[in-house]
């Protein structure tokens, strides 16, 4: 018997130019791990929201077809009623945390679905134990790392013991080890408890190893639905970048030139006086792309900000030659103006011609008049990139530029970054495949804050 199904599902968001989903039919079985792949904006998150009942109840819009979860028609049962049968883990943990304490946060769903009061605490602690976070029960959510917070959010969904678990790019902010841990955990729970898992990912290598079935969405249509072995063959033919780390962005012909930035034995600590960067040295030369990788909390972002001049080191020396620009992790911060072109022109004293060139370089030609907030997450990421490319910097520092970006766009981004002989580029990333694709040099910042060059 099917755990959940969609029949002829089409959906358009209110005011959208076209439908996000077009005539999608799919049937999910208990205990099956299904990976949903597709380019940015192809409807992956919308499909998950349809199974959670959030589409159409929360978002409104035009809905046709039929979606059932656990025998409940989502048109007749709202998301609150479906909670417990289905549970959703969203992309950004910061946007889904309600309470300030970990235990209260995990207990929230149990309270809502009417779990007997005497069983709530035990249920919440058990869910924390599943994700290996029972030691965090008494902590404040503001005092734990992003990776830990995502595990807490996973525990909050697992506490409901759902029949269907929806994971919307759950690893986008996690380092490879944490991401692997989270995906393996979801898989184990699925196997042990017969939970169906529907998972979207933009780093598909790991999920492809563990899933049973793959769906591929393209502009809202279901382009492929089949077992993973068959999916690999199909992807190799149709979308090879989804299965191959070999991006082939071209050989870097330029010899690295003069140093654009040199950090010597720099240290930095935030308010708690704990050293986040401890005596690190790094040289960034014109014409080379350096990838900075390492686990969550190892100080990558801080080192990148020191290089870009956004932070001043407590000790050590930073030498920069020319202009530096810095791309923040959160593309939602590039929303000062009401037109995309004006937004990009902020860093070039309103030079619209330069802004237009930068938009075209990132594939957003024709988006000049769009409002930055109306863009999809992948498009916002590219808009932010255009904003820091427009000043034609001597040093370009990018902090997690591939979050929410599909493998094909990552390939384009890698090619774009490698095509500038006069610029030094530092890319902070958790995406090791992208790092290998784009970088001349990969620098690893370990837990002990030691830099290793490769």
């Amino acid at each position, binding site marked *: 018997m099917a755990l959940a199904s969609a029949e002829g599902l089409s959906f358009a968001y209110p005011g959208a130019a076209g439908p996000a989903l077009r005539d999608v039919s799919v049937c999910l079985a208990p205990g099956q791990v299904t990976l949903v792949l597709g380019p940015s904006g192809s409807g992956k998150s919308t499909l998950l929201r349809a199974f959670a009942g959030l589409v159409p109840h929360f978002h409104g819009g035009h809905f046709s077809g039929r979606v059932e979860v656990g025998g409940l028609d989502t048109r007749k049962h709202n998301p609150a009623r479906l909670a417990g049968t289905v549970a959703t883990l969203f992309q950004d943990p910061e946007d889904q945390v309600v309470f300030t304490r970990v235990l209260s946060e995990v207990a*929230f769903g149990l309270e809502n679905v009417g779990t007997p009061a005497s069983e709530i605490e035990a249920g919440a602690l058990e869910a924390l134990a599943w994700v290996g976070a029972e030691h965090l029960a008494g902590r404040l959510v503001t005092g734990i790392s992003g990776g830990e917070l995502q595990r807490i959010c996973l525990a909050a969904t697992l506490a409901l013991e759902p029949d269907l678990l929806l994971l919307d790019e759950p690893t986008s902010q996690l380092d490879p080890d944490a991401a692997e841990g989270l995906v393996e955990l979801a898989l184990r729970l699925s196997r042990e408890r017969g939970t169906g898992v529907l998972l979207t990912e933009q780093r598909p290598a790991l999920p492809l190893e563990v899933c049973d079935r793959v769906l591929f969405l393209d502009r809202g249509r279901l382009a492929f639905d089949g077992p993973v072995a068959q999916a690999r063959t199909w992807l190799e033919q149709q979308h090879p970048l989804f299965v191959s780390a070999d991006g082939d962005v071209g050989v870097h012909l330029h010899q690295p030139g003069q140093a654009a930035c040199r950090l010597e034995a720099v240290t930095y600590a935030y308010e708690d006086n704990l050293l986040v960067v401890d005596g690190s040295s790094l040289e960034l030369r014109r014409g080379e792309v350096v990838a900075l990788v390492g686990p969550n909390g190892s100080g990558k972002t801080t080192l990148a900000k020191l290089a870009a001049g956004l932070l001043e080191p407590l000790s050590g020396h930073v030498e920069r030659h020319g202009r530096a620009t*810095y791309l*923040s992790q959160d593309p939602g911060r*590039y929303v000062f103006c009401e037109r995309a072109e004006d937004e990009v022109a902020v860093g070039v004293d309103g030079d619209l011609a330069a802004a237009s060139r930068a938009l075209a370089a990132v594939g957003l030609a024709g988006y000049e008049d769009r409002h930055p907030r109306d863009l999809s997450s992948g498009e916002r990421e590219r808009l932010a990139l255009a904003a820091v490319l427009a000043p034609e910097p001597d040093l370009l520092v990018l902090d997690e530029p591939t979050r929410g970006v599909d493998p094909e766009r990552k390939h384009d981004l890698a090619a774009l970054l490698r095509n500038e002989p006069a610029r030094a580029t530092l890319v902070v990333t958790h995406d090791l495949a992208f790092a290998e694709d784009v970088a001349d040099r990969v620098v690893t910042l370990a837990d002990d804050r030691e830099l290793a060059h490769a």
Partner: protein
Amino acid sequence: MRPAPAAALLFGLAAAALLARHTFSVAVLAVGLLVICLRAPASRRWPYLVGALGSALALLVLTPFVERLPGTVYWTGPTIPVVGTLDVTSTELSGAVFNAFRLAAVSLAFAAYALWLDHDRLVQAAGFARRSVLAVALATRLVPALERDAVGLVEALRGRGVEPEGLRGRARLVSPLLAGSLERSVNLAEAMEARGFGRPGATRLPQPPWRHRDRLALVAAVAAVVVGALWL
């Protein structure tokens, strides 16, 4: 202490400050609440203290100019159309000091509530109007969230070589901050609904039993209101 009696005590102190008639009494309440706020970690307390003390200072400075009360005239300024002649009198000044202390006391009571209370337990303890209590608890978290967002927005500008200096530079942060907080609230509402919020028949995590000091705080809250109304 349980958060409900602690909130009641802070409410009682704020009510006493509103009901009291003597400047000295209100000043003592404001200073007491300031001491409570100063015991919170420096990194968390400063936005609340700046907000509370800044607004009280603004009230102190502006009140004498906009009020027209008799008394010893300390300063006479120009005549402004509609407003009339600007002056500062002893009555206006004492009124301004009184109202500034009153505003400081009420704002600091809210700051102490935001800084010290366990809002999770407060929500879970709410026997009725749980949605409203949750809305208040989430609104309390708005200040640090806005602070984080503002830091991020400034960073995004500085990352492009633009330094947001002065009042005009800071003013350009207001619109994205407001829009960002609206966007976040929509995301949070979606996540809450997906977790069953609003479903009938919700239960609550059991609360620890009432202790002696919880009852004492409740009595003190009532006493503060009565004393404020009758004697302060």
